[in-house]
């Protein structure tokens, strides 16, 4: 068991991050080095400045809001939630003053961010069971959502335990020790990480997160990087022209 914990918490994490960063970089380079589309792919009427509208399309999803308002609410909750969770994780490495502009205790959100993201994920998953999204979906779409749900639920459980059930053995300090040891390539597993009541939650959380990271570059999750360039095309950006 100990070995298994070790494999998941140390070497697999390195492999996962390696695949994630290198895989994503290689795939993006490959895509962006393709010849550019020779003509405009714009939808009219045109609105200026184009870059601002492209940003708005990418981050505010106005077309989803207009046509599927309920989906929009959950999509926004989900994506903003993920962003907050990423910030929360960065704070598990160390203090970042910039994130403390709004003072909060680590892990931010008092446990509610994880809750909201879990609920959003369930919504996103269950809507795929209904026609016509069911006919459109492919296994990848379910895998990603299930994986994310498992990651978030086990991750949040650790947070919830501390906050809501007064479970105090596993603390921010221990995460910081573990994570910064990984960062400095001197992996160290504090006793609290591997041998307390909630350790298996942590191990499962990390395990599923590893799987997700390794699948990311090869899946539709790449939309995180490709959405903006695509929306720029729709707003009328043409390579090699002045685009205002």
């Amino acid at each position: 068991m100990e070995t298994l914990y070790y494999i998941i918490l140390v070497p697999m994490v390195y492999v996962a991050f390696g695949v994630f960063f290198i895989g994503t970089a290689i795939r993006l380079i490959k895509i962006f080095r393709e010849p550019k589309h020779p003509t405009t792919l714009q939808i009219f009427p045109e609105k200026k400045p184009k870059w601002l509208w492209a940003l708005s399309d990418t981050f505010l999803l106005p077309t989803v809001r207009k046509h599927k308002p309920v989906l929009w609410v959950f999509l926004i909750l989900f994506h903003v939630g993920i962003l907050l969770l990423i910030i929360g994780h960065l704070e598990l490495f160390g203090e970042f003053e910039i994130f403390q502009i709004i003072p909060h205790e680590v892990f931010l959100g008092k446990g509610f961010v994880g809750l909201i993201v879990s609920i959003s994920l369930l919504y996103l998953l269950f809507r795929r069971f209904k026609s016509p999204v069911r006919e459109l979906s492919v296994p990848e779409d379910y895998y990603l959502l299930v994986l994310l749900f498992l990651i978030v639920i086990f991750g949040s459980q650790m947070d919830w335990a501390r906050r809501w059930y007064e479970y105090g053995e596993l603390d921010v300090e221990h995460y910081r020790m573990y994570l910064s040891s990984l960062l400095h390539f001197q992996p160290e597993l504090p006793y609290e990480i591997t041998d307390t009541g909630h350790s298996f939650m942590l191990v499962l959380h990390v395990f599923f997160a590893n799987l997700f990271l390794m699948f990311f570059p090869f899946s539709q999750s790449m939309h995180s990087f490709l959405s903006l360039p695509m929306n720029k095309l729709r707003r009328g950006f043409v390579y090699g022209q002045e685009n205002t």
Partner: protein
Amino acid sequence: MDKKTRDDLLKLFQSKLNEAMRFYLETCTRCGVCTEACHVHASMGQVRYIAAYRSEIVRRLYKKYFKGRGKFWPSVGEAKELSEIALDELFDAAYSCTGCRRCMVYCPFGIDTQQLMSIAKLLLIGANTEPEILTLLADTSIEKGKSLELFKEGFLEGIKRLEADVLEKWQTEAGTTAIPVDVEGADLLYVALAGAHSIIPAAAVFNAAGENWALSFFEAVNFGAFVGDPTKTKLILDRIVNEAKRLKIKEVCICECGTAYRVMKQLAGKQPFKVSAITEVHARYLKEGRIKVDKSKLNGAVTYHDPCQIARNAGVIDEPRYILQHLTDNFRELTDDPRYNWCCGGGGGLVAMGEDTLDFRMKSSKVKVDQVKATGANILATACENCHTQLSNLNDHYDMGVNVQFLSSLVADALVR
């Protein structure tokens, strides 16, 4: 399908893979936001007519042959072998899509289904299973470009016969030619369609505006684009580009043909002439006071169908409305936002395929009929040959009782001195 055929087809697929195409192939999250976008799905209800479903048919092949995943774990994306069955599916997807790009307005990423369908169309050409008629028509156009001398005489004779009709609409001074052809140094080259309706009213308006114009030898329509053959599209386009350069034309004006306009405007690249749609030119004449029109010529409520390739996909939106303001006080919009106008259901080569697609075109465009009916208009104007044919077919089929008209004809009929 033998290996050689498949490899050849995959090469064609590969030739389509530029940056934008990779974006479109990698990104769809199958969120279903585009479900209500397609007029075919909205009219007929089948899931296979949802934009994302069509794209997925192309994307499955991509996942099989152009992603590493296709080798290790094809089932995760339902990657699919390129087979005879896959070709049938590609045909069904591509030739039930009019390339209107209404779905692109809905998609949070702006995935261009028309582009993805162009892969399907190219594969069909490679497998010799494209609609033959479209290739035939494209080849005829190209042939005409190669051996103009053979056609010239017949063409000029035909044009001569139309001149009387032009003069009936607008009498020019004695000695001027009603339909000038092959004029070096003309300001404007008008590219029409084969058919008097595309030439007579346009000529009358040019003459009324005192334009220094010439009629092109070639017809505007680009069957190469309909069938999705990039080489043929270019050859057909080049005939006109070369003519315009030879005559040192300043402005190439494309008749009421959506595909021709978009191809010329967006695909011709940088040229010494500018490209306009006839609608833009007419609006300009009105604005500059070069022509005058009389509102009393048009009775009843008028609505205007924005041809997808001219409006949503090429931006000619305000001009037709400006013209209509001068033609009537009773104009009614089909939609509040021109991006959401339903496609007539005739694009992408479907109208050019004629009777073969008639049944499908009628069934797939029910929503268009409802949209027109809701305006209560009795004149339905448009600015595209394809749309005009399709809307006229719909008018007959559904007993809509509207009068389908070309916008340019309305202008010509309302001309006053």
